[in-house]
């Protein structure tokens, strides 16, 4: 096993250096400069101040931070609610149609994300396609564009496939005879679902939730095109600090807050998962 270690290390090195230089070092820079200050020209300089963080948690920014968490949670919850029936139907009832449906679910990804989000804008706008249709049927107008609902709709739209795929994969390995067995043992459909199917699909649910929740935390294009002045997310604030007249150091502090949220989510998820496993193991040992 110990043979040729130098060669294996040499193979690892170039890729590892790319990750180090273009990912880890920049992330460390973000952390360092989130405590830095800016010079007269607005360029970040090293220093130690917590001003950037107090600016992040200013009363006018705070709603955006909360909104980001809230939107991400809502999007994730809606995605689970929509994706679970789809994945379940594809695995259990769709037969040969199942894989076709899954391909159709992924297909929209092949169209540029911004173009698709803009299509929603034209669909939802006040004089847009949906409102024209509603008007023709005599149902009146709905004002959606620019509201939180439009942003959440766009986020669900953008990330739903990332929930369907892991659920489909997990349910694909589930033995549905267990459901029959549960029914034979006089379980109501609801009880069988709660005690058999749902626990078995937990890995897919957890995986899908991470795949949706984490990228939604950092999204900014959706809120920019579908939202209004009152739907800004953390991603928008970071982007504007770096591209428009803003301070890169404040943007860096925002990015650190985002990463902390992310790490907290991961730690919480895996902590809960481990506790769940431990509990199951104890229960198993007791039985």
């Amino acid at each position, binding site marked *: 096993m110990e043979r040729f270690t130098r060669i294996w290390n040499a193979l690892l090195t170039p890729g590892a250096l790319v990750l180090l230089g273009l990912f880890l070092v920049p*992330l460390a820079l973000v952390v360092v400069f989130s405590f830095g200050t800016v010079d007269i020209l607005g360029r970040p300089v090293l220093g130690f101040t917590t001003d950037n963080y107090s600016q992040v948690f200013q009363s006018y920014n705070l709603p955006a931070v909360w909104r980001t968490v809230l939107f991400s949670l809502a999007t994730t919850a809606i995605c689970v609610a929509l994706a679970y029936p789809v994945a379940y139907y594809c695995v259990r009832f769709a037969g040969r149609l199942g894989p076709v449906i899954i391909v159709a679910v992924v297909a929209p990804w092949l169209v540029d994300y911004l173009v698709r989000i803009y299509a929603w804008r034209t669909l939802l706008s006040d004089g847009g396609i949906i409102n024209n249709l509603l008007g023709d049927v005599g149902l009146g107008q709905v004002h959606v564009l620019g509201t939180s609902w439009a942003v959440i709709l766009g986020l669900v739209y953008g990330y739903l496939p990332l929930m369907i795929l892991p659920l489909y994969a997990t349910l694909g390995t589930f033995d549905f005879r267990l459901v029959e067995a549960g029914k034979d043992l006089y379980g109501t459909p609801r009880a069988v679902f709660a005690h058999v199917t749902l626990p078995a699909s937990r890995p897919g649910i957890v995986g899908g939730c991470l795949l949706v929740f984490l990228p939604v935390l950092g999204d900014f294009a959706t809120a920019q095109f579908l939202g209004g002045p009152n739907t800004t997310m953390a991603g928008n604030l970071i982007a504007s600090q770096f591209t428009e007249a803003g301070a890169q150091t404040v943007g860096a502090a925002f990015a650190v807050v985002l990463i902390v949220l992310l790490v907290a989510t991961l730690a919480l998820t895996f902590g809960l998962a481990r506790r769940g496993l431990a509990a199951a193991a104890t229960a198993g040992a007791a039985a």
Partner: protein
Amino acid sequence: MRERPRVLRLVTALVMAFLLLPVVVVAVFSLNGERSLVRMGALDTRWYRTLAHDGDVLSSLAYSLEIAVATAVISTALGTALAIGLRRASRVPARTTDAAILLRLVAPETATAVALLLLFTQLSIPLSTGTLLAAHVALTLAFVAVLVRSRLANLDGQLEEAALDLGATPLQAIRLVILPLVAPAIAAGALLSFVLSFDNFITSFFATGIGTQPLPVRIYSMLRVGVTPEVNAIGVLMLAIVTLVLGGSWAVGRAVSKRRGVRI
């Protein structure tokens, strides 16, 4: 029992409609004879003709394709080598790299993109094609590494041990044993890097300098200024390109595996 599939089928149908609706809107309105994004006029190819004469968009398209091909080549080479080396490299570098790959896959793109911008400004590197390419490689490398590594994990590790025992040098073992076995994962990694790079907006947005913009960034600027239905035609064109690349490689992969008599 018979009741449940009906509800599930309805939900599935609605979700599919929800996901496909914007794509249909883009495709239909790309053929709109009128300059409206909400009212459909007579069918016409005028926006495709506009696109065919739009030098800015066409050069952005060529630029995006170049960057995507270069990203795919570099990321696939580095990512594959990394995944192969990872299995037998010394403990500490291997563990550290492993953690970095995982972190890379879950880190929010907005944060990593501004981090790179900060690095470039600190080192006084002007944004250019080089910075854009570096950013795309840094983004896609981890995906290639994960794909190749999971394929390697499913292989019998003793195969290369056997090759080494029989007197093969490590490079021979890699070339003659490992690479042919992980070829499907390498191909998948290359395709994924291509598509991720071609469609990428967030990272490109922060890593693009003055001069030619990659197509998604160009679309973003077009959408911010004022929209023409030309954007729909661009969307359809990008869809066609990605479908062609993916479909083409799928066909090639099938032909190759048929000739070799291997099931991938």
